[in-house]
C-alpha cells in the first residue's frame, strides 16, 4: 500500500463497513476487494486466454463467475470480464494485471466504481424476488447475473456457499442498501 495521508470512506459513507441483520438475513458492506475490468483487444482472445491460464485467472463463460485465490473473475459482456483480488495485496490491481496481459487486453481500474453488499442467510430467493427479476431459485453457485434493482443496474454474484454478493454503482449505494433493507423487512 502506498504511503499517503488520506483516509478512505466506504460506499455508505462510513469509516468502516456496515453490517445489518434483519431476521434471517445479514447484509454486509464489503470493501476489501479490488476490481479491474479486462477487455480483450481486437484479435487477441487467444493471447488473453493463455495469459490468464498461466496466471491462474479463470475467465468464466457468459453469466458466470469463477472464484480463485487471489484472482476471481466474472463475465461482464462479450470479451469482457471483471477481475477481482483482495485489496490487502492487490490495491493497485491494474498495475498487478498489466504485466500479465501486456497489450493483449485493456485494463481499467473499477474498484471504486462499485459498492458490494454480501447478503447471507436462508430463503434468499424470497428476498430477491421482491427486488429483481433474477431467477435465484434456479441459480447455482458461480452464476453472475446482471439485473436491475429499483432502477439500479446490479450484478448478483451467487457464491458457492449460497451467499449473494450484490454489486452496484457506488454513488447510489445508500439507495440500494435502503431497498434491500426495505425488502428484507417486508419479507421476513
Amino acid at each position, binding site marked *: 500500500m502506498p504511503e*499517503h495521508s488520506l483516509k478512505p470512506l466506504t460506499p455508505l459513507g462510513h469509516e468502516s463497513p456496515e453490517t445489518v441483520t434483519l431476521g434471517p438475513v445479514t447484509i454486509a458492506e464489503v470493501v476489501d476487494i479490488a476490481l479491474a475490468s479486462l477487455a480483450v*483487444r481486437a484479435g487477441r482472445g487467444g493471447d488473453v486466454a493463455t495469459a490468464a491460464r498461466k496466471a491462474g485467472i479463470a475467465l468464466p463463460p457468459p453469466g458466470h463467475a469463477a472464484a480463485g485465490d487471489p484472482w476471481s473473475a466474472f463475465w461482464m459482456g462479450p470479451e469482457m470480464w471483471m477481475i477481482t483480488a483482495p485489496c490487502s495485496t492487490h490495491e493497485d490491481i491494474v498495475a498487478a494485471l498489466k504485466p500479465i496481459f501486456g497489450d493483449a487486453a*485493456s485494463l481499467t481500474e473499477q474498484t471504486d*466504481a462499485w459498492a458490494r453488499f454480501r447478503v447471507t442467510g436462508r430463503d434468499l430467493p424470497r428476498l430477491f424476488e421482491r427486488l429483481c427479476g433474477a431467477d435465484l431459485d434456479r441459480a447455482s453457485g458461480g452464476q453472475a447475473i446482471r439485473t436491475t434493482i429499483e*432502477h439500479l443496474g446490479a450484478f448478483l454474484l451467487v457464491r458457492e456457499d449460497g451467499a449473494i454478493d450484490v454489486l452496484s454503482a457506488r454513488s447510489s449505494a445508500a439507495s440500494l442498501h435502503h431497498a434491500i433493507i*426495505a425488502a428484507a423487512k*417486508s419479507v421476513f
Partner: protein
Amino acid sequence: MSQSNRIPGGLIDRSGTLSFTFDGRSYQGHPGDTLASGLLANGVRLMGRSFKYHRPRGPISAGSDEPNALVELRTGARQEPNTRATVAELFDGLSAQSQNRWPSLAFDALAINDRLSPFFAAGFYYKTFMWPAAFWEKVYEPIIRRAAGLGSLSRLPDPDVYDKGFLHCDILVIGAGPSGLAAALTAGRSGARVILADEDFRMGGRLTAETQGVGGLSGADWTAQALAELSGLPNVRLMTRTTVVGAFDHGIYGAVERVSDHVPVPAEGKPRQILWRIYARRAILAAGATERMIAFEDNDRPGIMLAGAVRAYANRWGVAAGRRVAVFTNNDDGLRTAADLRAKGLEIAAVIDSRKGEEVTGSAGRLGLRSIKVRDGSGRTRTVECDALAVSGGWNPNLHLTSHHRGRPVWDEAIAAFVPGPGGPAGLLPAGAAAGHLTTHGALKTGAKAAAAALADLGHKAAAFDLPEAEDAPVSITPKWHVPGKGRAWVDPQNDVTVKDVKLAHQEGFRSVEHLKRYTTLGMATDQGKAGNVLGLAVMAEMTGQSIPETGTTIYRPPYTPVAMGALAGRSREKDFKPTRLTPSHKWAAEQGAVFVEVGMWLRAQWFPKPGETHWRQSVDREVLATRASAGICDVTTLGKIDIQGKDAGAFLNRVYANTFATLPVGKVRYGLMLREDGIVMDDGTTARLAEDEWVMTTTTANAVPVFRHLEFCRQCLWPDMDVQLISTTEAWAQFSVAGPNARRLLEKVVDQDISDAAFPYMACANITVCGGLRARLFRISFSGELAYEIAVPTRYGDAMIRALMKAGEEFDAVAYGTEALGVMRVEKGHVAGNELNGQSTALNMGLGKMVSKKKDAIGMVLSQREGMVAKDGLRLVGVKPVDPSQPLTAGSHFIAMGKPATAAHDDGWLTSVVYSPHLGHSIALGYLKDGSARMGERLRTVNLLKKTEVEVEIVSPHFIDPEGERLRA
C-alpha cells in the same frame, strides 16, 4: 343485531366472532365471511345506490364480478372507495360505509334521478350538454364532475407501502377451482415449477359453494386434500388473495396479491399489496365462469341475486339470502339452488323456469324485494311473495385474459355463451369453465388435460391424474335474455344501463358493439362488463335481427379487476421515487451546510451558505468572486467519464467527434464536440490522452448514459473490427475542479509532482500521485475561464481529498463552490452547457462551426452541412447585457427588434442562459440570435410574455471574461 339469516353449515369458523360496522351500525360475523356474507347474515341486503339513478342496491353476486355492493372500506387515510363487499374479507374492527348516497343509504336525495329517468337515457350527456359551447367549462363540467363517481377518496397520502415482485414458473395456474386444482396436481406431481394463484382467500372455486362431491368427498374436503398434497410439493407455490390481472407478451403475467387487505393495518414494514410480475413458460386459465342475470322489469332490487351466488351464500357461508326464496332460471343450474336451499330447510316460494314458458315480469319492494310478478305459460299473471329471487341466465366463461392480446371470443351455442377464441396469448391454455366446460367433471378433466399439454410442450412427462368421479350433467340452457315489458329492465346494473337504453342506442344508430358500449356506458367502470356485457349484446342482437356472433363482442383488456395505483407505483414514491446518487464529497458538503440540487439522480451541492448569508445570491456571488480572486474548489465527479482503450481508439474518436483527435499527443486534453448523425450537437466534453492507446472521455452529467450507449453502437454496429474497448469510469474517480489564480499554488501543496506551467501547461494531463503516494489523475482544463485543474482520485478517497484541498486552500482563502457558481462562471466565460445543447442546435449555432472537420468522416459531419443548417443568417450564440445594468434579464425571453411588435413573426431568437455576474455587477446572458455574429453592439428588446418582462439589451461577445484566454494559460 343477531345474525338473523345465519343458517347451519358452511365453511366459516363459528368459534370466532368478528365485529364490524356498516354505516356506523355494529354487526357480527365469523372468520371466513366476506363483508357481503356478514351483512346478509345480519339481514342487511341494501348495500349501495346505483351510479346514475341512485336506485337501492344489494349484492347480486358472491365474487369479484359484483357490480352493486360497492362500499368504502376503512376510514381516514386508508379509506378506499368502490370496494366490492363480496370480496372484502371480514376482519375484526372493519368499518365500511355505503357510498353514492346523501344523506343516508335508506333515504338518498339524488334518488330523484330515478324519477327523472326519462331524461337520463343513454346519450343524455351527449345530447344535453351540447350548447351553448361557452357553458361547457364553466357550468356543465363542474355539474357533471360533482355528480360523477361513486365513492370518495380520502385525499390523504396512502400510509401503506406496496411491493413489487418477480416470480418464475413453468406453469402458472390461474384459478384454484376444480380445473385449476386438477391442473396444479398434474403439473406439480410431474415436478414442474408451478404457481397456483387464486383471487379468493379460500381456494376451491365453486367446490366451496356446491353440494355435489368429488370422488366421494365433499367439494371442500376434496379441495383440502388436494391443497394438502400441493403444499407438500416444494415445486408448487400456492398463492391465495392473488388475482392475475393481465396477460402480457411472451408469458409475462401481472398479478396483485392482497397481503394485508384482510387485516386492519399492515404489520410493521409489511406491504399492503404486492404487484407480481410472473414469468411463466405456460399458463392455464382456470378462472371459472360468471353467472348472468335475466333482464326483467325492476330486476335490480336488493334481494334479487344470481342463483349461483344464493347457493354459495348458503353452502359456503351459511347464509340465507332470504327466508322465502324464488328461483328464475333458463337452465338446469338454477334448479340446483332450489334443491340446495330446500335441503337447508328454506322455503322455496316458486321455481320459474323460462324453458316451460314461465317468466318473471316484475318485482316490488322499495328498499328490498317483497314480491315478484310471474306470468305462466298460458299468460296468467300472479304475485309471489318472496324476499329473495335467485336468477340464472346461464354462465359466461371468464375468458378475459384470452382477450388481452386482442383474441376474440367465439360463440358456443351449447352453453349460449362466448368461449375463448383464437388469438389468445401464446402459451395460455384455457381449461374448465373458463373454456366453456361447465361441469365439475369437465373442469377436472380439461384442467388435467391442459396441464398435460403444457408439460408436453415443456418436455416434462405428465404424472398420472386419476380423474375422480364428479357430476357431469348437461347445462340444458335455452337462452332467455330479457322479459319484454314496459318498465326498465337492467342489463348492466353498475352503469344503470337498461334494455331500453340498448334499444335507444339501436334506434339512434349506435349498433356496433363498440358504439353501444360508448353510447350507453355498458360494461364500463369497476366490473368492466362482467355483469352485463353479454346480456347487452344479446339484446342488441335481437334488435338487429342478427345472431349474437354476428353482432360481435367487445374484448377485454387488463386489468381483470381494478388495481390500486399504489400497487402500480410500488416503492417508487416520494423520496424513493428514484434512487439518489451521492457525490464523493457529499458527506463533507452536508457538514458545510450545503444546499443540494437534484441533477438527474445526482444530488449536487448548489451553493455553500456561510453564516450571515440570507439569500442564495449572496453565497453564489461570494463563491464566484473568491474563485476569480484566488481559488475555488468544486466536485465535478458527476460528469460522465468513459475509459477508451485500444489501438484504434484515436481513429474511433475521430469518427465520433466532429473535430480531430487522432493527432492529440499523449499527455494532452482536447475539447470535443459530438454530433448526432443528423448534424445536431449531441454532447460536448474534454477527452484526455493518458497513454498511446488509453484515453478518457468526459461527457456532460446528463448525457453520460446516452453517450456511452452511442459509443457502443458505433463500436459494435458501425465499425465492429476497430480495436476499441469502452468502460464507464464515472463512479471510479472522485474529481474536483480547482480554479482561480492561486489554483496551482494550492495544488502544489497536495500533488507530489512538478506542475509548474512549464512542466504542466494548459491542456496537459497526467497520471500523478497526491498526498504522498495516492495515485491520481490531473487535467489542466478550465470551465470557469480561470487557471484551473481537475484532479481525480479513487472515489473512496474523495472525502479525504476535498478535506485536503480545502485545508491546503486555507492560506488562499479558497472557497468551495456549487453548481450555481459553476454556472455563473461558465456563462461569464461563454461556454455552452445544457441550455445551449438543447437537441436543436448545431456547432454553427454555438459559434463552433469551425470545429467540424470536413477532412474526415465523422458522425453527423455530412448532415451538419445541410443547406438549412449552414444558413448565413441562422442562429448564432451571442452574449447579452442589459443597457440599464440595474435591470435583470429573464431566461427564455425572446429577441425582438426595437419598435417591432412582440409576435412570432418578429422573433429573432431567445436567451438560453441568464446569470447575475458579480464580476461585472449586472445580469448577463447567452442567447441564440439570428445572424448574431454580425450584430455585435446592436440594441434589441428581450421580451418574456409569460413573465411579462421586457428589457432593452446590447448584443456583445459571449466571452464576458478574459476573451483572450490569458488567465487560463497563466
